[in-house]
């Protein structure tokens, strides 16, 4: 607009394409990578996932000599290796909520739904893009965590664990799958709540407030109910041994997938029905 010209002409567009899902997928990927805070959060989540097990391993190694037998028995190499999963799940959940809630808070959702007025492809594309990004980051992170912590703990035979031991590879990769599912669940929550603070609070309530609240119930109730909470069911994906009143790996995993599916269905119905 710097030059005042008597007539302003819009250049014609040579090629005209149609709206298509693979294009929405690319568009959502552009959005994901083009906000600086998103990139940094993912990077920080990646680093913390690795940093925690490494720090934990060094602390364990240096204190091992002075630890009591019961303390030593309480240390499990897999817990150490996957200590980062707890940190990662929080970062991934917050970002999952933000990916959609920020569109509402900034108003960019209006642009998004003007380009894709059927709306649902946007939800599928966001879920798919995010799931892939989280997996691509978190699988290397848990593998690095496992091998790095084992290398640091190599001098302590009690804490030695081989990747080829039964269930170990499943638990390590299960931790990554768990974090990915947390991201999906959080994104769906964000789409339902459409508000950053509300979305994060809802997630935190389900994952961090509800489980301890269950202990206020009579023990038999708690035992029966707690294992079906999203967080407790999902955690079975990276548990090596199963304590009493917990689901098996696959049942727990499926229950958590069920929660994710339910959240996605609700999000999809609301996305189509509600005004923007």
């Amino acid at each position, binding site marked *: 607009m710097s030059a005042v010209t008597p007539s302003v002409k819009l250049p014609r567009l040579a090629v005209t394409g149609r709206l298509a899902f693979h294009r929405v997928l690319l568009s959502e990927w552009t959005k994901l990578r*083009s906000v600086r805070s998103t990139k940094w959060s993912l990077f920080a989540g990646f680093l913390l996932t690795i940093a925690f097990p490494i720090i934990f391993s060094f602390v364990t190694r240096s204190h091992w000599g002075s630890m009591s037998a019961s303390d030593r028995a309480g240390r499990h190499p897999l817990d150490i290796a996957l200590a980062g999963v707890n940190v990662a799940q929080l970062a991934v959940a917050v970002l999952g909520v933000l990916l959609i809630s920020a569109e509402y808070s900034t108003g960019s959702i209006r642009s998004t739904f003007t380009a894709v*007025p059927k709306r649902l492809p946007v939800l599928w594309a966001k879920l798919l893009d995010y799931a892939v990004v989280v997996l691509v980051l978190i699988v290397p992170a848990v593998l690095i965590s496992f091998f790095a912590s084992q290398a640091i703990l190599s001098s302590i035979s009690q804490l030695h664990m081989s990747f080829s031991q039964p269930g170990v590879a499943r638990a390590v990769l299960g931790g990554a799958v768990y974090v990915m599912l947390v991201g999906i669940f959080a994104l769906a929550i964000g789409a339902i709540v459409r508000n950053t603070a509300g979305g994060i609070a809802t997630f935190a309530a389900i994952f961090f407030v509800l489980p301890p609240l269950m202990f206020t119930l009579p023990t038999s109730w708690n035992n029966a109910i707690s294992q079906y909470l999203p967080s407790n069911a999902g955690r079975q994906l990276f548990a090596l041994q199963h304590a009493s009143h917990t689901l098996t790996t696959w049942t727990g995993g499926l229950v958590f997938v069920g929660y994710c599916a339910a959240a996605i269905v609700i999000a999809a119905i609301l996305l189509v029905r509600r005004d923007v």
Partner: protein
Amino acid sequence: MIEARDLTKDYGDKRAVDGLGFTVQPGVVTGFLGPNGSGKSTTMRLILGLDAPTKGDVTVNGRHYRDHVAPLHEVGALLEARSVHTGRSAYNHLLALAQTHGIPKSRVSELIDLVGLHEVARKRSGQFSLGMGQRLGIAQALLGDPKTVMLDEPVNGLDPEGIHWMRNLLKGLAAEGRTVFVSSHLMSEMALTADHLIVIGRGKLIADTSVDDFVARASQKVVLVRSPDLERLRTVLTGPGVTFEDAQRGALEVHGLTTEQVGDAAAGAGIALHELTPQQASLEEAFMNLTRDELEFAAEMEEAVA
């Protein structure tokens, strides 16, 4: 072409759009006028399918907006509310939208140059001024080379140069045969830009007319007359529905008579006239006259509620 039939939208108890029916034709600039809060933005959201109508229907180029296979090639829209992620650059914002339709990157750069955002295209759009945000919105609206261009208050925040640019752009787009639908609460702006007007007040259609007819219909008969013998002229012209207002330098503003009536009466009485000019009400005045009743009604309602 935009066609609305009995378009109605309620938000809770409040009826924002009330039985609107109109057609926006291609090839001309159609101004969408109404005071703030009269339902212009809501109507545009209904056209884009961002909000669902409570009743009635609206189609763009023959279909509901959402049913088009390439929506961005059908309608390019600038909404009044900000529609950009503040953490994303203008370039990436446009790129993400372009990618949904397979529009090439070169088009994004082309539009950024067209609206003069080249220098700041890689900066986070949250740092943009109102005018820069508006230009980005215009680039977004034109990205898909759309058949229909719909802009909500496009000159908001633009400097005089930008406003001039916008007028030329809109006229050019209409001349190419596109449908151009532009909302504004500034009548003077529409007088310079629009060919046709759709006027609403409190969600209802007040007028659907050409700009010329609109002014003619809404303006009162006012004649400016200059004469060495104004006193006698006053007496001659006095009659029911005729009022006078003193104008500058020995001139008189006669309300309620046409130039013919004033001229004939003066000739009949042998009064010399030095000037006889029909005064056209400005579009602003015409609009005020038309919407005054609606606004007064709204004010009364508010008082009644309070």
